[in-house]
């Protein structure tokens, strides 16, 4: 029994750090933020060539065939570098395609195509019962990266059944409209479908189980990505506290500042324990996997925001400037908190699984 990365996993994590910090420095993040889609074809090509897009998918589908822990390690580094673009969207779409044995997965793994899941509606509910749109006619909201997707996976209803279908982004009757939001590194859209034809992936109970498992996979990935963001905010804050001087000494010598930093460390490490355990639990299909996922996301949702609060506070006025990168992480923290359900949503899910014994 060993709760930590193996040597190979650590090597993967190190190479992810090297790759993402090298290929996607802060200047690139800031540049992409200002674009309509936060997508850079040449960066995406490199990500695809390195195999990151297919990290957890089977080798037959041109994936790397690695596990959830490796994914978590890579996500941590992406969160640290604040990599913009449709990676997480593609992962969720890929998890659905993989579970339904759809050959389109290979094009996602190679980075040739991009996809995303259109799930939320005006009710903004993350639970599966929140899907009410008729297949395929109506409005989807908060759809990430729809502006660069080649095809969308749409959750809708056929009678009482949940259905998952593939729809081409440029199909007649599909209208994609930008919904500018707090995190400019990951764009959101409203997508309207007017009597659109789709290719059926799964229906009824099968569709529900595919969707909930894929959401667990993506939620773990997001929780791990959030850990990487927290670690970066902690690192830059500690560095700043060591160098910024007031009253003739580094502000990190003041206990009030040290306590903020220590709190950030506790939040970051606890989020990390929860995220990696969830990854392990999903990978090994442990009975408590869904609870573990919700624990990781509930905790990280509150923790990343709080780490951001403390990081900015320790930076004083500098932390409140546009020029300082902290607000980019603070924005990502908020968007991540809301994605796939916030802490309140996941606590209720824990309650259903633990109190109601569902």
């Amino acid at each position, binding site marked *: *029994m*060993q*709760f*930590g*990365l*193996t040597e190979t*996993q650590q090597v993967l994590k190190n190479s992810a750090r090297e790759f993402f910090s090298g290929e996607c420095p802060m200047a690139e993040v800031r540049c992409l933020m200002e674009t309509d889609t936060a997508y850079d074809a040449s960066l995406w090509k490199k990500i695809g060539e390195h195999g990151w897009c297919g990290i957890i998918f089977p080798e037959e589908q041109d994936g790397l065939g690695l596990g959830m*822990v490796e994914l978590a390690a890579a996500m941590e580094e992406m969160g640290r570098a604040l990599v913009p673009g449709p990676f997480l969207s593609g992962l969720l779409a890929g998890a659905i395609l993989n579970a339904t044995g759809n050959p389109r997965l290979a094009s996602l793994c190679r980075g040739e195509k991009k996809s995303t899941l259109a799930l939320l509606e005006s009710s903004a509910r993350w639970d599966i019962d929140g899907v009410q749109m008729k297949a395929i006619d109506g409005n989807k909201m908060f759809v990430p990266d729809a502006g660069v997707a080649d095809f969308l996976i749409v959750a809708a209803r056929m009678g009482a059944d949940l259905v998952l279908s593939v729809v081409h982004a440029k199909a007649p009757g599909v209208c994609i409209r930008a919904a500018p939001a707090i995190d400019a590194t990951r764009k959101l859209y409203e997508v309207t479908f007017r009597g659109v034809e789709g290719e059926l992936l799964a229906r009824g109970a099968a569709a529900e189980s595919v969707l909930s498992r894929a959401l667990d996979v993506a939620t773990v990935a997001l929780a791990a990505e959030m850990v990487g963001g927290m670690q970066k905010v902690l690192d830059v804050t*500690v560095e700043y*506290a*060591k160098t910024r001087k007031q009253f003739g*000494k*580094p502000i*990190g*010598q*003041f*206990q009030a*500042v*040290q*306590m903020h*930093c*220590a*709190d950030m*460390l*506790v939040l970051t*490490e*606890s989020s990390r*324990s*929860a995220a*990696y*355990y969830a990854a*392990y639990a999903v990978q*090994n299909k442990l009975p408590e996997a869904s*609870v*573990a996922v*919700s*624990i990781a996301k*509930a*905790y990280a949702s509150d923790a990343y925001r709080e780490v951001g609060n403390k990081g900015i506070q320790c930076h004083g006025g500098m932390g409140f400037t546009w020029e300082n990168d902290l607000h980019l992480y603070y924005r990502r923290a908020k968007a991540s908190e809301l994605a796939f359900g916030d802490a*309140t949503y996941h*606590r*209720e899910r*824990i*309650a259903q699984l*633990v*109190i*109601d014994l569902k």
Partner: protein
Amino acid sequence: MDLSLTPQELAFRDELRAWLIGNIPKDWVKALAATHGQRERFEFLRAWQRKVYEGGWAGISWPKEYGGRGAGLMEQVILTEEMAHAGAPQMPGTLGLALVGPTLIACGTDAQKRRHLSKILSGEEIWCQGFSEPNAGSDLAALRTEARLEDGHFVVTGQKVWTSYGWASDWCELVVRTDPSVPKHKGLTVLLVDMHSPGVEVRPLRQMTGETEFNELFFENVKVPVENVVGKVGDGWNVALGTLMHERATLGAGVQITYKRNFDRLLELARELGRTADPIIRQKLAQSYAEIEIMRLNQMRAYSRINQSGVPGPEGSIQKIFWSELNQRFQQVAQEVLGPYGQLTKGAPGVFDEGQWSYGYLRARGNTIEAGTSEIQRLILGHFVLGLPKSY
């Protein structure tokens, strides 16, 4: 990362599980609650420790020659988890098991190990920790209890305070000043002191819970043989620090058993009182559940690190902060679930669980102070883990 058990670990777990099913005293929570006074309570738990020892489950990672099992730290983790699952009582010789034993294994002489370790495991001898003093709390190195070398003995005079289980102890891991002429961290030595020696006085210290779990210890010219020095004379700060690291790293594992049981019980009561449909209560219970689980995971990670590096490091302070603050939040959630019932004390009509919830609420207040305050733990993290300049 691999949390699956090796065939060896699996065999260990299955054997342990079977043993626990056959040996955990039936209805022990009720039996324990029905005991009168802390001595009777203590003896009840001591009998359990004896049983665990005789079953071969105490000192899992301690060397075989001293009564341990010679297994790895991971078996220790399995033991803690299985005890928590099975709802086993806690062992009362905690300080010996978690702190003094590991310190002796790391720094003690062979004679000390042979003399003490197996009796720590069996609970035959109970240990306390003579660290804090009235004027040396967070600033431990400022302690003044002094030991003079006279005719081949140390002669100890001074006062210690906040000594858990002082009243039940046969031995004390005592930090004393052996050289007042050097800077404060350098003149300290750790001694093993027989609590039955002439000149040792143990006075009860009544806490805000009404209990006298802690004590004040007074030493008046107490003779301690020189062979009872742990490590070297003058190296007491490092020896004591090692003990404190063990404390921070491992106490969390022990409380995990209690927290899991408390949560399960609170959930039962919440159902009984019809509180589980209340969305606010659901949120709070779920948050407590998540925090208890994260404490377990942090602990597993910490153990895995110790397993690789061999020694607990300063990141144990994360655990100390986490379990202490979590318990304070949890006890407040319990109060909200129980409503007016939460305040009732033992013997009150309608009281649940012999008043353990009102007691638990008050007792939790001490958690962020004992074993190093949350403030000191955060400064340890700030300086020793994050590398910020020392603030004091």
